[in-house]
């Protein structure tokens, strides 16, 4: 019997050594403190930063809708669908509990944080080629600036975070930063990005120098800094890296993605990796009956469709009609599997640059240059030269041309905000539509998501939404 006693005694001795077992590291996951130490790991983090641009809260679904559905360009087929998150925006009834806003806000800051992590750590990581390291820093600064630029236009004053989060409690009580401060950060990031970004890339979809210049031009234009904007836009045009494609049918073709007209686009593809790199946007933004599971959100209005003249090549190429004569966004191409759309979501393209050039030159009083720019867009669409000859007329002509050229790309609401025409345009629109809806200045900003305010009451709600 002594032997029986012996066995556990031996085990006991063995076991006392087991307290070191209390250090357990993840087996199928990595851990942040041991990550981002090599070039490969930095690249992986950079990839996930781009990946977060694909999420529903950003370019995967909501951001293009938020940039357009409040405007006269698009409407919601069934406003009550999906908790009325689109319908309420369309009809100026947005509440702070709106799920689209909550998702957009969260996804924006998740993306920014990924940029912050990379920017905080990349300095100490050795890269085989220094240019690559610089490029990655530029890419992260561009993406951070892009997200802040969207946020500041949508929400006004916003919390500004540019450091890696070590302790999330740090942000309690920090409140919102002024619009001007946010713009300073955006300008700083883009200026620095321009200095380090390469002019071309072998990986389609990466941020390049002209993207940062184009975005900075748009940032300046939005702030009405026309001279500064002109410098950046002219640089993009002078770079010769981009051009207008001759045919409007080719720009959004699935077989011609990342063409010369595209400056920066969020990448999607159908049928890849078990249909996980596609977008649900086509299905969500298709009118009933166009595809299985169609949701009818953010549809182009009939009124806009009618604004294309018969000869305009964009009619059909940009907006087409269903068999039931309902206009739909034909820049998104029909996928085989409904929720696996392959169309890239264009953030910046050359036609936008040319139209911004027209706008800047108009404001600077250079009517001829403005007309020439506007005509480049018109002529490509098989339209005659503009008849607008004055600054005032050109403003209206450019506004219309932007609607016709950029419909479905999520720009119209930002254009209305920039030009200060949102309230008058929308009230006229609802009157014409016979809808008893009145737009007031409170609607120029979206509400801060309620859950952010619930978490940290020092973040105050935008006026009118309390």
């Amino acid at each position, binding site marked *: 019997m002594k032997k029986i006693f012996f066995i556990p005694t031996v085990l006991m001795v063995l076991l006392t050594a087991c307290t070191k077992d209390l250090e357990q*590291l993840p087996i199928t996951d990595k851990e942040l403190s041991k990550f981002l130490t090599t070039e490969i790991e930095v690249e992986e983090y950079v990839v996930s930063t*781009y990946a977060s641009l694909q999420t529903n809260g950003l370019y995967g679904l909501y951001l293009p809708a938020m940039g357009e559905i409040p405007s006269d360009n698009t409407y919601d087929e069934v406003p009550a669908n999906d908790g009325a998150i689109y319908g309420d925006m369309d009809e100026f009834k947005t509440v702070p509990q709106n799920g689209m806003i909550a998702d957009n806000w969260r996804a924006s800051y998740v993306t920014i944080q990924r940029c912050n992590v990379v920017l905080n750590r990349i300095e100490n990581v050795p890269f085989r080629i220094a240019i690559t390291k610089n490029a990655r820093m530029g890419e992260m600064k561009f993406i951070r600036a892009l997200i802040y630029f969207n946020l500041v236009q949508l929400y006004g004053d916003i919390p500004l975070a540019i450091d890696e989060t070590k302790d999330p409690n740090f942000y309690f009580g920090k409140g919102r930063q002024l619009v001007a401060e946010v713009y300073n950060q955006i300008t700083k990031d883009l200026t620095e990005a321009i200095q380090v970004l390469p002019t071309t890339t072998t990986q389609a979809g990466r941020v390049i120098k002209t993207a940062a210049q184009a975005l900075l031009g748009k940032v300046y234009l939005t702030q009405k800094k026309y001279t500064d904007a002109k410098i950046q836009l002219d640089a993009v045009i002078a770079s010769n890296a981009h051009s207008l494609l001759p045919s409007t049918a080719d720009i959004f073709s699935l077989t011609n993605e990342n063409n010369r007209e595209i400056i920066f686009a969020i990448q999607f593809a159908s049928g890849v990796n078990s249909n996980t790199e596609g977008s649900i946007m086509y299905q969500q933004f298709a009118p009933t009956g166009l595809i299985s599971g169609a949701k009818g959100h953010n549809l182009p209005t009939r009124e806009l469709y009618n604004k294309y003249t018969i000869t305009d090549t964009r009619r059909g190429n940009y907006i087409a009609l269903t068999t039931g004569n309902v206009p739909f966004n034909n820049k998104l191409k029909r996928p085989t599997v409904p929720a696996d759309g392959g169309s890239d979501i264009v953030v910046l393209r050359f036609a936008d640059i040319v139209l911004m050039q027209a706008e800047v030159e108009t404001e600077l009083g250079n009517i001829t240059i403005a007309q020439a720019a506007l005509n480049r867009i018109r002529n490509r669409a098989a339209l005659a030269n503009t008849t607008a000859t004055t600054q005032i007329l050109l403003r209206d002509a450019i506004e219309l041309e932007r609607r016709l050229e950029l419909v479905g790309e999520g720009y119209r609401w930002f254009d209305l905000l920039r030009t200060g025409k949102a309230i008058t345009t929308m009230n006229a629109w609802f009157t014409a539509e016979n809808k008893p809806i009145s737009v007031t200045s409170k609607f120029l900003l979206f509400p801060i998501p309620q*859950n952010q305010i619930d978490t940290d009451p020092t973040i105050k709600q935008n006026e009118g939404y309390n």
Partner: protein
Amino acid sequence: MVNQLKLLLLVSICCLTQMVKAQQIAQIKGSVLSETGELLSGVSVITTQVGSKEKLIATTNERGLFSFNNLKGGSKYNFMFSHFGYEDYALNNFVVNNGENNSLLVRLKVTTSSLSDVVVVGYGTQQKRFVTGSVAKVSGQEISNFSGNNFAQQLSGKASGIQINESSGQPGTNPQIVIRGIGTLTAGRNPLIVVDGFPLTEGTSFNFINTNDIESIEVLKDPASASIYGSRAANGVILISTKKSKSDKFSTAIDAFTGYQQRADNIEYIDAYDAATYFAEARDWGYVSKNPANRSITDDRATRIAKGASLRELPLNYLTPYLNKNAGLVNTNWINEIFRQAPMSNINVAISGGNGKTSYYTSFNYFNQEGLLLNNGIKRFSSTIKLNTKLSEKAEFGITLNPSYTNQLFFNTNGGFDEPIGAALAMYPFFKPYNNDGSLAISQQIIANAPEDGALTENPVATLKLIKNNRSFFRLFGNGYINYTIAKGLKYKFTVGGDFGQSFFDFYNPSNLGSYRIPAPKPAIASETNTSLTNYLLEHTLAYSKNINKHDFNILIGYSYQKENNFSTAVTGDNIVDDNVRNIGGASTFSANPNRDRWVQVSYLSRLQYIFDEKYIASFAYRADGSSRFGDNNKWGKFPSVTAGWIFSKEHFFPKQSIISFGKIRATWGRSGNNQIGSYGSLAIVTGGNPANNYIWGNNVAAGFSANTTPNPNLSWETNTSYNIGLDVQVFKKIDITAEYYTATTSNLLLNVPVPQQSGFTTALQNIGELQNRGLDISISANQLNLGKLQWNINANISFNNNKVLSLAPGQTQIIAGNLANIITKVGSQVAEFYGYQVTGVFKTQDELNNTPKLPGSLLGDLMVKDINNDGLIDTKDWAPMGAYAPKFTYGFSNTFTYKNFQLTFSLVGVEGRKVFESNFATREESGEGFAMPTKYYFENRYHPVNNPNGFLGQPNYGNFSAARRAVRASNLFIFDADFLRLRDLQLAFNLPSSVVKKAGLTNLRMYVGANNLFTITKYRGYNPEATPNSVLSNGQSTSNYPIARTIIIGCNITL
């Protein structure tokens, strides 16, 4: 409480007397035995001469002997024998003869009192009378009255302080066990389940524990009792002891029952004709209300389109015959189509015996419970093998193994539109489940409703019949031990335990079944998940007990090591071209999601119990736990406890003839912990390699990784510190009363704190905040109350609890949860309180609408709500607290009546002060949105200016369902009183007379009829008044939970 039945008083007296005339000094000797002939030591013997007051006292020695030397020969004496655990015995007017030849032989009967019970506590047992902590004991006999497969279901109402929430009736689902209130907000809420000394992983399924094998269940309710389990004990500890052989005799027991189940809810929908009225009203008013000046209810389809009507404002053409009240149209009651009467049966064979040194117990069980839903249910085959043997005088060895195989046909029932119950609520009665040829009617409603955007739901009968969701589980757990007596009173025990689980989930959704919005055919979906669990335990304990005069010492020290590995691989198959092979084998591309984790716990434990003179009890326990789950700076937690007890009825000043036969007061203080977070909760995990993190450069996929949690090297246990005071009293030797008051404070809550989102995170796991539970548990039990020939056992209990949040993160005053963000946990209030508007009526006139404070966007027919803060505006500042799911009190009441060979048993369970927020009613059935099916209650009380002008619920409105109406979803209309009183179990049994049984060659034969949940008295109109999700913060949010069953069974117990 114990059930010690059917012992009859058996006292035999032997007296030898000798007649002697002269009065001399006399001596008397005697011995005291138990009924079974065991010599009893320590029996108190008191004698008084008849007519005198002088008492002589003696105590039996270890051989059961006592003597009195100075008695008066020829006189009469009264004797009183008393001993703990035995009934007192009085012998009166006994004549003591002269000389030394007087002798007595007394047999004492074991008392039916529960006080003599032995109670299992962590790492040992204690006599119930010396227990100072809060331990509830429930016997296997008591729980077996509820026929089922799950000990937690059976525990409902059986003991104070333990609340069982059967939140889903799906067979095989664990009910929630809440012991003395919920002490955590976002960490795991599961109590620790210890089976025969083996602590199972928290949250493990209870299906693997065969209830037929349970001898008793002890629940350690206060942290002082539970602290011996340290960091895993804060939610309470449930100790399950399984049966073993009771004697050497070979014995076979067969228990079998069979019966059927049916729905036990109160839900009621309307028929097709009323539904047609409802949908038409909703579409018409939606259309008109958008612009009453320009639109009219009589506008036809074309006019409506011309006036810009959206799809939801168009009439549904197929409703016309219904609105015309044509007879004989399709009128499907979908609830009746998806649910059924479902059989349940169980057979258990237990064989036991032994040979003096070795004993064995083994059982075989087959349990089959079909679900109330079609094609849903659980089947289990299980066994228990137990062997104990004495290797020598000093060494003992034992082993227990519990293998089981379970097969489950599972459906999600969280209210989603692709889930059978969620879909049935959105199925219109105008559609049929089957075509005329008997085949399943597929996607008919989706197709018919698409042009006007009605509910686009797939036939749930088809979902139930076509989807394969087969889950199988193999599980083996058990342990082996060696006991070795090193010296007298000093015992060493070595235990090795193990728990091995394999499960396989096989899912296939064929292409001929549509899903919400999407008609069939659509691509088939296949997936399978393999998981494996390996958990092992090594334990060494050393126990020493010593008695020195009146001092009793019990000392325990121990070491424990437990390690668990989990693996899972989920594989999803895509590009399934045909439905030929109905599993992932039919797919042409695959994606896999692997997951592994591991945790380790190392513990040192100790306990000292000291008893003085069987009156004063004190104990100290201390456990130190190290866990791999916590941050580098806080790996070790320390869990002490102190207890004290005083058996005042043993004091000399306490009147011996009092109606109070036993009395004890006790107090405890102790700490325990909760470690239920993920295995790597303290680390910032970088995830990726999955679609959400991947990106595509042109057409080349690149893998991305990023952190999705925040690091916290200081992360540590939640600590529950509690005080408990208790009073145990026994009156008339039959009735036990226990009352306990406790206060338990959980500090360093493991809280998923919502954090400002500019941090890049929405929540972060931190040790922050404090939560307090206070309450009172009272229980009364009485055994063998004789009412003539009728014998009555009763057990009643009531438990009060209230909780309060003392603090959250710095600067954080509340946590908001729930589908409608109206379940709020506020500092200073109770956990998960429902908030909402107080609805006061319906806007029926433009005048009311213009002159009453209202929610922005309110229309005619919308709801008027109270302006609580009187600021003329209606916003969330006008929300009022409306109660919570956690009840004010719960109670249970169990009775057994025995009359001759008949036995009637029943238990009532009740809950008071509970609210349930039926979020599906708020968004569907009773919202008036004209999308899903309304309940009968809503339909009969809806407002419609013509059809129902006196209605008080919002007017049906589909196309223009306002933001105001959506806001009023958070209101008193959907926060229901969910109090209930339920006849939990009922059993009428008949024991065949032994003469008959013997002839059949049996030892015992008992036959019974029984019922579970025969009736429930409740005002709740939804599916299940116990409905709640697992998340503490949204406690009581119901989403059409699977209803629980009313069950009728017949059964028998046979002993060969």
